[in-house]
C-alpha cells in the first residue's frame, strides 16, 4: 500500500479554519509545494502552529502575509514584518511560546502526554494564565500539548510507506511536527520504494505519515539573496 498521493488529494484535508501545523525554521524546511497549493486552493482562516512566521514571500510566510491565517501559535515573527503589522492591526492573533517549549508541546501532542513541566519564562509574560506546580521544591509551568488537524512537513527522501529522511538543517522542527497531526502530509524531494532506505538512517518512522506528495523544489534560498 502506497501513501503517495496527488497534491490535490493531500490538499483536500486542508480546509477553512483548520488547525495547520508546519515544519520549518526561518523558512528553511517549510514544505513549499504544499504551501503554494494551499494558497492556490484559497483556504482561509487557518490556525497555524509552527516555529516562526517565515519571510513575507518565503514558505509559511506567504500564508501569513496574504492574510489566510486568523491565529498563529509561534515563537518569533521578526523575519516577517507583515505578521507584526497584521498583529498590531488586530487581523492576526499571535500567541508566543519559547522556541524549545513550542517544540516540546508539539512533541507532547504527538506522544500522547498531558503536557510538559517547564521553568522557562517564569517571571515573564509567558507564565500568564498558566498553572504552576512545585516539583522537588522547584516551580514549573504546566505547558499544554499541541496537536493539529493537519501537519505538513518537508523531507529529503520518503519511501512509499512514509519513512522520512531530512536534509541537514532543514530537519529542524519537521520530525516533531510530523508526529502531531491527525493527518500528516510529507512533501519529499525524492520518493523511493520501501526497503530502499536504511532503517538505521530513518528519522521519522512511516507510522506518523499519512500522505506523501512529490516536491516541486524548495524556494527558501531567497532568504539571503
Amino acid at each position: 500500500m502506497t501513501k503517495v498521493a496527488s497534491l490535490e488529494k493531500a490538499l483536500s484535508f486542508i480546509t477553512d479554519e483548520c488547525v495547520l501545523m508546519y515544519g520549518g525554521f526561518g523558512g528553511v524546511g517549510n514544505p513549499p509545494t504544499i504551501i503554494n497549493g494551499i494558497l492556490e486552493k484559497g483556504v482561509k482562516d487557518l490556525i497555524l502552529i509552527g516555529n516562526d512566521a517565515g519571510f513575507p514571500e518565503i514558505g509559511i510566510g506567504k500564508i501569513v502575509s496574504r492574510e489566510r491565517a486568523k491565529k498563529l501559535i509561534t515563537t518569533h515573527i521578526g523575519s516577517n514584518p507583515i505578521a507584526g503589522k497584521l498583529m498590531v492591526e488586530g487581523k492576526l492573533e499571535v500567541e508566543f511560546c519559547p522556541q524549545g517549549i513550542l517544540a516540546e508541546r508539539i512533541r507532547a501532542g504527538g506522544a500522547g502526554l498531558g503536557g510538559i513541566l517547564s521553568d522557562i519564562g517564569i517571571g515573564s509574560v509567558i507564565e500568564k494564565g498558566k498553572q504552576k506546580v512545585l516539583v522537588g521544591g522547584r516551580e514549573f509551568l504546566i505547558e499544554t500539548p499541541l496537536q493539529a488537524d493537519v501537519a505538513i512537513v518537508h523531507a529529503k527522501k520518503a519511501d512509499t510507506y512514509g519513512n522520512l529522511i531530512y536534509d541537514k538543517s532543514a530537519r529542524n522542527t519537521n520530525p516533531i511536527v510530523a508526529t502531531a497531526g491527525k493527518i500528516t502530509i510529507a512533501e519529499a524531494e525524492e520518493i523511493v520504494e520501501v526497503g530502499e532506505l536504511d532503517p538505521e538512517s530513518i528519522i521519522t518512522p512511516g507510522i506518523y505519515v499519512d500522505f506523501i506528495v512529490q516536491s516541486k523544489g524548495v524556494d527558501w534560498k531567497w532568504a539571503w539573496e
Partner: protein
Amino acid sequence: MGMGVDIRNHIARRAAKEIKDGMIVNLGIGIPSLVSNYLTPDIRVMFHSENGILGMGESPEKGEEDAMLCNAGGFPVTILPGASYFDSSTAFGMIRGGHLDITILGGLEVSEKGDLANWVIPGKRVPGIGGGMELAEKAKKVIVLMSHVNKNGEPKILKECTLPLTAKNCVDLIITDMAVMEVTESGLILKEVMEPYTVEDVVKSTGAPLTIRMEGNEFD
C-alpha cells in the same frame, strides 16, 4: 542599534576573548554573530545553532551556499568536521539541559541584577521570543553585547529593566561600545573602558551604580 561597523566589530572582538578552547558556544543574531570572526586559530569551539546544528563553520563562498544548511537566522553556513544535525527538540534539550558553555546575545536593557530584556518593545517592535529565553536562562555563561545607551542617549543598563523581561538574573557579563561590566550579587563591576571614553563617561551613561575595579584592559 545605530553603531558603526567598526564599533560593532570592536565589541565582537572583545567578546571573542571570553571564549576558551573546547567550549560549546551559541551566538545570537546581530553583533554576537560577528564574534566568530575574531577567534584565534588556537581556539577550537563547537558552535551550536538552535535550528539543529552543532559544529557550525564559516559562511560559504558566494555561489557555494546550500539551501538546506542555514543558521537560525536563515543565512547559509558551513559545518566543521565532527558536526551533527538534529531536530529542534534536541537542539533545545541541549540548551535547557545546561550543556552550553556560553551564549552571547544582543540586549535592549540589562539591570544591575542581570535581568535581560531583549525580545519586545511594546507598541513598536514585536519580533518574538524565539530561543532567547532558554538560552538566557540555561547557558552556563551569558554575555550581552549592546550599545551602552539607546538612540536618545539614555542608559540601557539600569537598576530595573523597563521593558518586558526575557529572563531574570541571567546575565554574567555586559560588553558595550564603552565598557565591560561584570554582574555580581553585589551589583555591577566596571572592569574595562573602551577608548576614547573615560570612567566618568561610563558612570554618567549608566543607570545603575558601578563598582570600579579595573584590572587591565582586554580591549584592543
